[in-house]
């Protein structure tokens, strides 16, 4: 009886008695969710266009952030470093297309997935080799990203919104909107959708697969850089970040592997549920349930709707 009370009633009582904490938790969940969504966005872009599940997205985030900070440390001014980093991500996209995608053109998905494992391992070694393993501080001031917080005295308590989090949410939404518009309205966007539907048909219409792949990996690189900046600003830039990238998988499951708005919605849902779960129900289990809660949520969701909220229903033919 006591247990039932603890599980079903007490958390809501807590929510009611301290509504400012509830709002704060919701906000933290939202911010976390937006950051997950940014990582998921990278996955979606690449999966949509090349059918590859890019496991290396996480390390690309770290790599982009490290390049930016590393260049700045060498004396390059912030915005110039930003441009150079974009250039580096472009080179990376070309290299990936040349070395990984082209030789493995017709292979089953799992082989391409494994190849991105190899890419991850390579980038970890390369990144640490070039930049060193010491954690670095993200150059938020130099990029004119706002610091500090906005505090609201509301609901009998304090709700504090970090300005950098607000900036992250805004930037993420802008990116999603921009990408959605890009896919709908531009020629390259249409070509990307064509490639996502069928490689062979796209080839037969004259779309250059190689150019498309470079374009999409570069786009994923831009997203990775934005993600790296935001994540780096919240803690610091180190290789611990790539562990967080695994969290994007439940987001993808929820939102669908091929849907850009799905990544955002899925991210927010996972982020908020995770924080709420950890904060209100976590202490019952001794805390630390954040490490698996997202996956269990995704799992339960999968049992009822395997293609995710926005994904395409998979039709199999024998």
């Amino acid at each position: 009886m006591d247990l039932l009370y603890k599980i079903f009633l007490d958390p809501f009582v807590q929510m009611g008695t301290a509504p400012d904490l509830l709002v704060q938790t919701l906000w933290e969940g939202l911010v976390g969710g937006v950051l997950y969504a940014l990582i998921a966005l990278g996955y979606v872009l690449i999966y949509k266009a090349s059918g590859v599940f890019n496991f290396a997205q996480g390390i690309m985030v770290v790599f982009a952030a490290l390049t930016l900070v590393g260049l700045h440390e060498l004396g390059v001014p912030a915005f110039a470093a930003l441009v150079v980093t974009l250039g580096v991500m472009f080179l990376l996209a070309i290299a990936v297309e040349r070395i990984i995608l082209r030789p493995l053109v017709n292979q089953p998905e799992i082989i391409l997935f494994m190849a991105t494992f190899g890419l991850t391992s390579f980038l970890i070694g390369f990144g640490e080799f070039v930049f060193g393993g010491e954690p670095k501080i993200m150059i938020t001031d130099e990029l004119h990203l706002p610091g500090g917080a906005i505090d609201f005295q509301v609901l009998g308590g304090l709700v504090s919104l970090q300005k950098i989090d607000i900036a992250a949410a805004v930037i993420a939404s802008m990116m999603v909107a921009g990408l959605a518009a890009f896919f709908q309205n531009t020629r390259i966007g249409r070509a990307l959708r064509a490639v996502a539907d069928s490689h062979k048909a796209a080839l037969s219409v004259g779309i250059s697969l190689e150019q498309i792949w470079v374009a999409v990996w570069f786009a994923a690189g831009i997203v990775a850089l934005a993600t790296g900046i935001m994540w780096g600003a919240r803690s610091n830039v180190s290789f611990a970040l790539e562990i967080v990238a695994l969290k994007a998988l439940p987001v993808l499951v929820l939102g669908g592997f091929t849907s850009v708005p799905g990544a955002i919605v899925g991210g927010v849902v996972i982020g908020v549920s995770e924080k709420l779960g950890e904060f209100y129900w976590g202490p019952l289990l001794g805390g630390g349930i954040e490490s698996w809660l997202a996956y269990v949520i995704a799992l339960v969701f999968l049992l009822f709707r395997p293609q995710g909220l926005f994904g395409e229903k998979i039709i199999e033919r024998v």
Partner: protein
Amino acid sequence: MGNILGNETSVGAVQRGGPGGNNSKENAMRVTHIILGLAFAMASAVAAPAQAQDSIYIPLLTYRTGPFAGSGIPIANGMHDYLTMLNERDGGIGGVKLSVEECETGYDTKKGVECYEAVKGKKPVIMNPWSTGTTLQLIPKASVDKIPILSMAYGLSASALGNDFPWIFNPPATYWDGLSMIFKYISSKEGGLERLKGKTIGFIFFEGGYGREPIPLLEQFAKDYGFDVKMYPVTVQEMQTQSAQWLGVRRDRPAWMIMWGWGAMNPTAIKEAAKINYPMDHLVSVWWGGSEDDARPTGLGAKGYVALNFSAVGANFAAIRDIQKYVVDKGESQVAAKDKVGESHYNKGVYNSVLIAEAIRNAQKLTGRKVVSGEDVRRGLETLDINAARWSELGLPEFGAPLKVSCTDHNGHQATYLQQWDGRKWMKVSDWVAPMTDRVQPLLDAAANDYVSKDPAWPKRTEPCDKTS
């Protein structure tokens, strides 16, 4: 006669499938075979490397990669640079050069044990695992392999009992000593530990062997002084996203927060604490949270944050200046910048190497041999006696509290001090605080008993006790 791998131009060859023609397949296979062949040849050429008979081998288990590199790099540099300085300036110890080799573990226990197995054959005289997890796994092996383990201020607290753990040493203080010293500091700020009755004390810790060590003593104190303990575990995956834990701190409003973190956990925790406007001078960390790299990302926002320390901070010591001269300036060091020398964790690495050097010196004195072995260094460790005068002789006056280890006490339970972050650097804010030995000793005895009784085959101590020199 075609070659072994088949004729590329054979038209009727069996289709081997896959992209690309037979040409690239054959070439690739040839290349693969050559690589594999080379690899096997190389591998078989790996014999136990010849060990120069006239040097002392010291392996350093370090982590310059991975999520804990932030903490591991300065320590590795400090350790390596001091020993290299001894080689360059004095020609080694007692005229025998030190052969220092790093083995990268990434703070992974499995890799740590693998490093141990790999270097075992080179006859190391001492082992520094730098990870509580690795130390715990090496403890049973030390007496069998005859290699003493120096787990300086980490590892198994109970290994302070020299009679039960003759091969393990953990000066200058155990985690339980450290916790008791934190409580002494809290007591000085509160006006007595009785004032804590009814309050809440939060404990945010790294979810692993290291972070869970102090919990029994913490719970004991909670019972004795009537305060409530709230636990905030942080798993390795959640190290960089601690907002849930610190939201909990906001909800529970503990009067004091005690932190037991490592690697990327510390800077994130300090950032989050500043975000929720937790009074930073009520956030106290064990010595491993006292690095500049932990507080610097938050900068002025972390002003007031307190940490224990057992070694002094700063480069204004003769020995450290020697390191600058003989090692850093000559390019032998891996420090990223000259001002990293003398930082908090760097000096802890230096402290570790001082202990190693003194142990070797003691071993040489006790046995009369120059090239000492693991067993000799064990005796050297057991007779460690670095008083204030000796610290000055070493060129490090007041670097650490006077340290004395004995056969029964492998720890020393020395005093530490507290340092506070002023926004840009560490300031010493207390004198040397001694641990509450009366509270800690019974727990140590009980823990050692528990450990030994669980394994009926645990060897009884047979090593004789040397009188201190």
